[in-house]
């Protein structure tokens, strides 16, 4: 691992810690942007250039900005609101996270890469395109995801739409009297 890489890793972990510990939500969101940008850089180093671009544009550019908007909109910059109803969770949270880290790293340590990996071609769009749009691979998944985005858009609009006044429900019609025959 090169020095740059070590630096990047350190930055990642540091910014992540800021995200989860910062008392100001705006700071946390900004730290997340920093984190995402560093990850994008790492992606470039890992021969995933198109993904890196997407990461910058979609994640750092759109998503986190959306977060910032919402924080502003709700005036929710203050992170520690109200009373902590589960004060006892702090210690288990740390222990549990540590345990998770432990088992994950242990799991990774037992894993070995194949001897001769394939070629990534730098993860450029030319390489990804045929895969993404090839009907034999991911095309249908892509269409589905597109549809999902559409649905999510509509859902978001519906969710934040101001409440309408619902007209009073119709009273059920008087129960039909049934004929009793002899």
């Amino acid at each position: 691992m090169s020095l740059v890489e070590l630096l990047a890793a350190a930055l990642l972990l540091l910014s992540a810690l800021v995200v989860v510990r910062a008392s100001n939500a705006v700071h946390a969101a900004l730290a997340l942007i920093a984190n995402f940008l560093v990850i994008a850089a790492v992606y470039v180093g890992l021969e995933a250039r198109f993904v890196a671009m997407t990461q910058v544009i979609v994640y750092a550019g759109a998503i986190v900005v959306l977060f910032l908007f919402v924080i502003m909109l709700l005036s929710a910059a203050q992170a520690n609101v109200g009373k902590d109803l589960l004060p006892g969770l702090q210690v288990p949270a740390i222990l549990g996270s540590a345990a998770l880290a432990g088992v994950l790293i242990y799991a990774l340590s037992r894993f070995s890469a194949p001897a001769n990996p394939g070629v990534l071609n730098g993860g450029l769009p030319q390489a990804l395109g045929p895969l993404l749009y090839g009907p034999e691979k991911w095309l249908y998944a892509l269409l589905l995801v597109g549809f999902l985005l559409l649905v999510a858009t509509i859902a978001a609009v519906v969710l934040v739409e101001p409440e309408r006044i619902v007209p009073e429900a119709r009273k059920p019609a008087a129960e039909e009297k049934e004929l009793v025959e002899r």
Partner: protein
Amino acid sequence: MQETVLLPLIILLPLLGFAVLGLWGRRLPEPVPGVVASALVLGSLLLGLVLLGQGGARWAVEDWIPGVPLSFVLDNLSGLMVMVVAGVGFLIHVYAIGYMHSDPGFSRFFSYFNLFIAAMLVLVLGDSLPVVFIGWEGVGLASYLLIGFWYTERVNADSARKAFIVNRIGDLGFLLGMGVLWAHFGTLSISELRELIAPEGEFAVGINVAAVSLAAFLLFIGAIGKSAQVPLMVWLPDAMAGPTPVSALIHAATMVTAGVYLLCRNSFLYFDLPDVSFWVVLIGMLTALYGALCAFGQTDIKRIVAYSTLSQLGYMFVAAGVGAYWVAMFHVLTHAFFKALLFMSSGAVIHALGGEQDVRKMGGMWNYLPQTRIHGLVGALALGGLPLLSGFWSKDAILAASYEYSALLWFVMLITAALTALYSMRWFVLVFMGKYRGHEHPHESPAVMTWPNHVLTLGSLFAGFVGLPYVVQSENLLEPWLNKAIVHHEHEKLPVLDEWALILVSAVVALGALYYGYRFFQAEAAGRLPAWFTRFQEASLRSFYADDVYNALLVRPLKSLAKILFDADGGLLGGFWWLGSATGNLGALLARLETGYLRFYAAGLLIAAVLLVLVGVIR
């Protein structure tokens, strides 16, 4: 023996009467239903006689239910019964036209009566056990309907129900007996069974004697129920709740003898089974004695006769048990005459007294009822065994047969015969002798009631002569004729001297007891009885507490257990509901884990993730 469709017609005639009278009888004016019903029974009788004269008949539908035919046979045995059932039945039908006069249920009565005749003919003519069973239950139904004929009185309805239920106990025995025969012989046709079990007057080689014994015993239980033998005798006295012609026809002359007929018809099961036959003898003997003892205390004119019926049925069972099947049938025949006569004389007396049945309020009828007094006298003497009357000959035959079986049995039966003579005189004296103790204005019955009694009187006087002992007539009419249809062992005839001695002894005992009874019970009529006898009568009146014992030991415990179980069954459903709510409670318990804290769930997720990874890695 011919195949003819006329045979079921014998049954269909009264059945037709049942249907027609049941549906439209109420629209007919009074005597018409009775006349129609009587005519149909007469038709059956004549048809039966014609067919019998042509040497019998049979008719069958194969595989009526799989493996079981619907078959009828008219041979000498069933022929005799047809004569008794349709013949005596016809007389009683005619009698009932007078007796049931102006009853609102007149047509209903004759409809039921015809149903009874039809069912009884099915029973008698059936050549496969299930067909016999149809008749068997059919007569039970008719008996139930007729005992409860005046159903608005609770006691009548109760008696009817009791008769049906007690009979059903016996019927279960019949059913299970058929089960045994079916399982071991694969057929229920009587003639086929006879071929399989006793082809040549002997049990077939290699036959399963235990199975035959069991079947015979179970069928015998059926006979016990139908013929009101100990211990299922409790229904018969109560059955007197029905109109008197019913008691005469069903509970004296025909239906109750069905048990005896069953034993004779299936004698191929019993004749070679000393164990089972011993039980038949024992039950018959106990019943004969018990019935006779109970008759002494009764105050109801019909119940006296009813207990005498019990006792006489016991005689018939003894005869069947000792292997003298023709003698049993002989007694069925003579008993039908004199017992029907006794009942119908009782009916005439009841009729004369406007419905009074208590003998303590009778007496002196000799002066009021010039025809019925003869009927009553002949009936009582025949029952009591006055020499030369029909009852004497058949009873003597039974005594002779039991003497061959065992001297002790003979002695008990002789004592019973003496008791019979005594209580028959008690009946006669209390009803006809002395001074009238009631307040009605007795009047003789109309001709439609007396003429049948005339015929029965002739029967009671002379029917015995068809079955004379061999010392009197070397070959009597009945024995060889019946034995063509019965499987039995030939008995050594008693020496002539012994036979004469037995006849003499029973004649002397009967005469003596009749005379002593005649004297003794004039004291009762006058209300002067020894104290010990009064105490005995009290116990006898309550039939030695048989009903109380049954109620305490069986009926009440079963009823209360039914109540307990009924509630417990509701609890069973409650149990299922409990199971349901227990599941619900468990769910509620688990639901407490759902705290509603998002982060609590997240912590759960985290732990689960750790564990999953651990499992994945370690595996």
